């Protein structure tokens, strides 16, 4: 017993756990500050910039990077590509946590959490895109929760109710794809209300299409990235099937992401042409736009293609990281960096340390919960009692 204790204590106070602990404590303090002193005490938001990184990073990037859930389950259950089956549960868990944290982050920005049900159940603003996004996120979060419950039921040993939920899989997947199509594009459509504020290189009538298409390869890249991390840190929790299928999932998603990214690049060029924005490319903003497009879309697309052709896992993993960074850059460009581009420097928005700290706190909660669930429930391995399914 004493030996066990001695062995478990060093793990409990490992450097990673200590850092996570510090982030959680600081985050708790920031949370108290935010909800007792208001937005002004912790953020640099003002009337010019009412949306900061809690929307630009936590919400827009969170939703885009959580797209792995609908992409993977659609590939497996709608398109019948069963070789991706082992990737479904980790992707659904990531998506569920991603959306749950989006809702949590939204509370920090909006405040008054007890009013959360109002837009859906009390006062519906049916003419607002935000209402549509809110309704979709509410419904999709519920769908993701139900989609994940079989893993929890297997862990708890509730066989009968698990059987009922498993029968709903296809229905839930289709519902999830429909809801994702709606709200991923609507998040882009939100910025169409501000043609004079968003730089013309990022503003386009095709913004909803750009957001939806980019969410597909964002989701795939996130599945590859997350699988790389899971192999590195939770490899001992994976069964033989997961270890065996992982490279196939990475190469399959790399091929699909590469092709979709080239399509995305094509429609971005069409967007430039249709609005006659070529002249802006020769400016500083144009250079920044080209960095985003060439460095974080075209380059990783070629890297994905090479990785898929040559069966080079390293290329695929590097491309996945670049693509995830590219999605973050794109969403931040649209919501923060190229937004209000015409304002003098003194009026431009830069997040405060407390805003950044809150975002780090929210991401850390996601990592902690993922680790807690993945080390206990059958996410990275098949439960021995349900192997045949």
């Amino acid at each position, binding site marked *: 017993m004493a030996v066990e204790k001695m062995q478990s204590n060093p793990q409990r106070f490992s450097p990673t756990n200590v850092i996570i602990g510090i982030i959680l404590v600081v985050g708790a303090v920031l949370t108290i500050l935010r909800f007792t002193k208001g937005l002004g005490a912790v953020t640099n938001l003002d009337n010019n910039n009412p949306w900061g990184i809690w929307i630009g990073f936590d919400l827009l990037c969170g939703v885009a990077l959580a797209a792995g859930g609908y992409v993977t389950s659609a590939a497996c259950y709608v398109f019948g590509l069963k070789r991706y089956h082992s990737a479904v549960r980790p992707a659904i868990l990531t998506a569920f946590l991603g959306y749950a944290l989006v809702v949590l982050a939204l509370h920090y920005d909006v405040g008054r959490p007890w009013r959360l049900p109002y837009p859906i159940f009390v006062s519906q603003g049916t003419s607002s895109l935000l209402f549509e996004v809110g309704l979709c996120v509410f419904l999709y979060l519920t769908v993701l929760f139900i989609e994940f419950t079989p893993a929890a039921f297997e862990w708890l040993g509730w066989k009968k109710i698990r059987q009922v939920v498993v029968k709903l899989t296809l229905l839930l997947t289709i519902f999830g794809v429909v809801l994702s199509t709606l709200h991923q594009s609507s998040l882009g459509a939100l910025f169409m209300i501000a043609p004079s504020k968003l730089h013309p290189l990022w503003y386009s009538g095709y913004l909803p299409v750009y957001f939806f298409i980019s969410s597909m390869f964002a989701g795939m890249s996130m599945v590859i990235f997350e699988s790389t991390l899971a192999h590195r840190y939770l490899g001992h929790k994976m069964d033989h099937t997961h270890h065996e299928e992982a490279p196939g999932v990475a190469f399959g998603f790399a*091929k699909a992401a*590469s*092709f979709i990214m*080239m*399509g995305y690049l*094509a429609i971005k*060029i*069409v967007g430039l*042409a*249709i*609005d*006659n924005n070529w002249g802006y490319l020769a400016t500083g903003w144009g250079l920044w736009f080209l960095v985003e497009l060439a460095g974080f879309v075209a380059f990783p697309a070629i890297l994905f*293609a090479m990785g*898929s*052709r*040559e069966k080079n896992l390293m290329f695929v993993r590097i491309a996945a990281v670049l693509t995830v960074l590219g999605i973050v850059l794109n969403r931040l460009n649209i919501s923060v960096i190229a937004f209000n581009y015409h304002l003098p420097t003194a009026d431009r928005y830069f997040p405060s340390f407390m805003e950044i700290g809150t975002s780090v706190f929210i991401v850390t909660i996601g990592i902690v919960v993922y680790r807690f669930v993945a080390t206990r429930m059958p996410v990275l391995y098949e439960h021995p009692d349900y192997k045949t399914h």
Partner: protein
Amino acid sequence: METIIYTLQDFMTHTKNITYLIMGGILVFLPLFWLFLTEREKE
């Protein structure tokens, strides 16, 4: 030679001309890229 745009009609004609040319390029490029992506699988 720079195109002078006086009216919305001029603007639409100018941008649509370029867009259609780009679309033609995309229609040729994407199938070729798909072949590049998948040709090793046949081997």
